[in-house]
């Protein structure tokens, strides 16, 4: 267990409403230093609102935000890098000047800011664009420049709102590599996404939210291990009438296997027993590591006050 000093970010019972609509409700979240954490949920579930509260752009109606164990204003300026969902640049500025400016407002010296800006531009293949105006770059290139602006002051915490949207697969890979790289150097990264497979590849921790409520959060591997009982892959010969039963929530056919999604707390042994009793020949019976998507769907349904959770979850792309 990490003490509060070991936390990069702590949200304590944070809530935010816009007029009558609850955007974030009673959200608590701890992110230890040095991990990559995904903030996952369908569109409109409250990811961006949460991030904006972390960045001080919105003030929570209730609850507190703590960065590195202190009031957020202390650390935000120099220790945090932020990539907003809506990408903004100074169109008329030259790329390198723009990056130097962003470094400067985070307390990096001018010369040092220039040096780092140039190094990053070279690294991302934009070296020859350094003295071109930002508006002359393509959308994707602008997005890269903006990402450099997020990391140029070597922040200890990176907050990225939908960093992969709008990037082609090649550049998504580049971005993933950089994020891993920064993590290896000790940075903490929090990013939001509705793309579950990115999260699955990249995250050590996840926080799933749906309709303003936290569904669950924790270490991804532990979560998956805990959820292992939830999905069973069965290969068998014979009638499939035995499948219907009190434990099974739904089924899905994957490459000749049948995946059974079990209800919370259901006993997979009972399912196996039923199959044997029904007289089918069981060729394979395996607890499958569930996909993040499946975990999300299970828990979004179970969470309190989430009647429409399935509709919400269907917005999640596996």
């Amino acid at each position: 267990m990490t003490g509060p000093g070991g936390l990069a970010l702590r949200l304590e019972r944070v809530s935010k409403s816009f007029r009558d609509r609850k955007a974030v409700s009673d959200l608590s979240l701890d992110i230890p230093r040095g991990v990559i954490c995904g903030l996952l949920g369908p569109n409109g579930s409250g990811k961006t609102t949460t991030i904006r509260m972390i960045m001080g752009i919105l003030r929570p109606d209730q609850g507190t935000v703590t960065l590195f164990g202190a009031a957020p204003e202390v650390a935000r300026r120099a220790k945090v890098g932020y990539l907003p969902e809506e990408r903004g640049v100074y169109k008329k500025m030259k790329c390198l000047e723009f990056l130097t400016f962003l470094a400067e407002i985070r307390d990096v010296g001018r010369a040092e800011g220039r040096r780092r800006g140039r190094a990053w531009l070279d690294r991302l293949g934009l070296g020859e664009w350094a003295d071109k105006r930002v508006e002359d770059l393509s959308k994707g290139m602008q997005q890269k420049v903006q990402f450099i602006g997020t990391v140029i002051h070597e922040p200890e915490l990176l907050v990225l709102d939908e960093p992969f949207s709008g990037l082609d697969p090649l550049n998504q890979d580049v971005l993933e590599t950089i994020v891993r790289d920064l993590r290896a150097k000790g940075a903490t990264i929090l990013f939001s996404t509705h793309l579950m497979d990115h999260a699955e590849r990249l995250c050590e921790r996840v926080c799933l939210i749906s309709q303003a409520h936290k569904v669950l959060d924790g270490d991804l591997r532990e979560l998956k291990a805990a959820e292992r009982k939830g999905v069973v892959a069965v290969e068998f010969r014979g009638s499939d009438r035995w499948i219907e039963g009190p434990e099974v929530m739904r089924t899905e056919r994957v490459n000749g296997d049948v995946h059974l999604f079990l209800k919370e707390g259901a006993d997979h042994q009972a399912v196996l027993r039923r199959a044997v009793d029904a007289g089918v020949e069981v060729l394979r019976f395996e607890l499958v590591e569930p996909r993040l998507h499946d975990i999300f769907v299970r828990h979004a349904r179970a969470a309190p006050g989430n009647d429409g959770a399935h509709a919400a979850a269907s917005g999640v792309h596996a």
Partner: protein
Amino acid sequence: MRAVVRREYLQRVRSKVFVVSTIATPLVLAAVFLVPMFFADRSQERERKITVLDATGVLYDRLAPRLLESGWTVDRAPGGDMAELRALVETGMTGGLVVVDERTLATGEATLYAEDSPTPFDRLTLRTAVTRAALEESLERSGVDAQAMLGGGNLNVELLSDAPSGAGDPSFWVAYIGAFFLYMVILMYAVAVMRATLEEKTSRIVEVIVSSMKPWHLMLGKILGVGAVSLTQLTIWIVAGALLGSAGLPALVTARPELADLGSIPAALPGLGLVTLFVAFFLLGFFMYSGLYACVGAMCNTDQEAQQAQAPLVVFLVVPVLMLIPVIQNPTSAMATGLSLFPLFSPMLMWARVVGGGAPAWQVGASLVLMAASIVAIAWVAGRIYSVGILMTGKRPTLPELWRWVREAA
């Protein structure tokens, strides 16, 4: 914050817009005042020719130069035969025939024969020329210095109070043009602050910046940056103006003696003290209005919205311009004093009164103090509205909402 100021300054000073506006603004200002004069001149030149039949034998020599001055071409009637002269007019050989005689000397009456009815302006110049010629002749016959008398005499002013002197015709223009210029530059730069704010808001770059600094610092940085640009531009204009006045004009007058009239301009130009005061009024005015305009930029989402929302501010800038003439003509009246002490009007109106010579030093000082106090008050209110507004999207706030922002902002 230094980075914000530097960015704002360099981006602007390096831009083409800066170069163009540095050159264009004085031209526009000149155009506003000179073009009407030019066209007034032109309309006089259109009338080509007038013929004078002088039965007195003395009036023609007095009339001719005066008519030439107002743009006519004058010649003496070739003979006294009225039928022939009428034919001249009818065939268009001359634009009109003016007949002056002894009766003219006595009453100022004369007769114009013309094809078309003369314009009111032509009537006026002709009448003035004729009566003036007649007056001069009669006055000189009775031994009076007609030139001096008709020139309006002279009133030697000896002021006994300590009000700054400097009344006279040129100072009217310095007061008027100067105040108008203040209006133009304050509006121009305040709007620049508004646009910059709006651009940052709509492009969302502001989210990144505000996560690294207080919104209030961003606003201050913007205003100081634009302010520095404006000072640069003013300095260019003032230095250019000084060079033109001290070196350019005399050289021009030497080269082309027919422009000798221009030689009197440097004498009318404001001295160093007034230039300093001008810059002070500009800066104070700029800081007041740019704070307000930054607020407008922060609470709007589109250019159109901002155009509407700035309308009340424009009123505060335009009212003093409309009041300029009455204030300059009667600078010590209660109305002039009151209006010029109202901080948002002070830059234009107090300037006009100072140059017009009608403002005691304590009132000038008071207006400076009031403006400084207003800047603090505006910064306090505007900073709060800005801090909330810059991150708000959606509907433009109503006045009660704005008030809530002011109360709730940290």
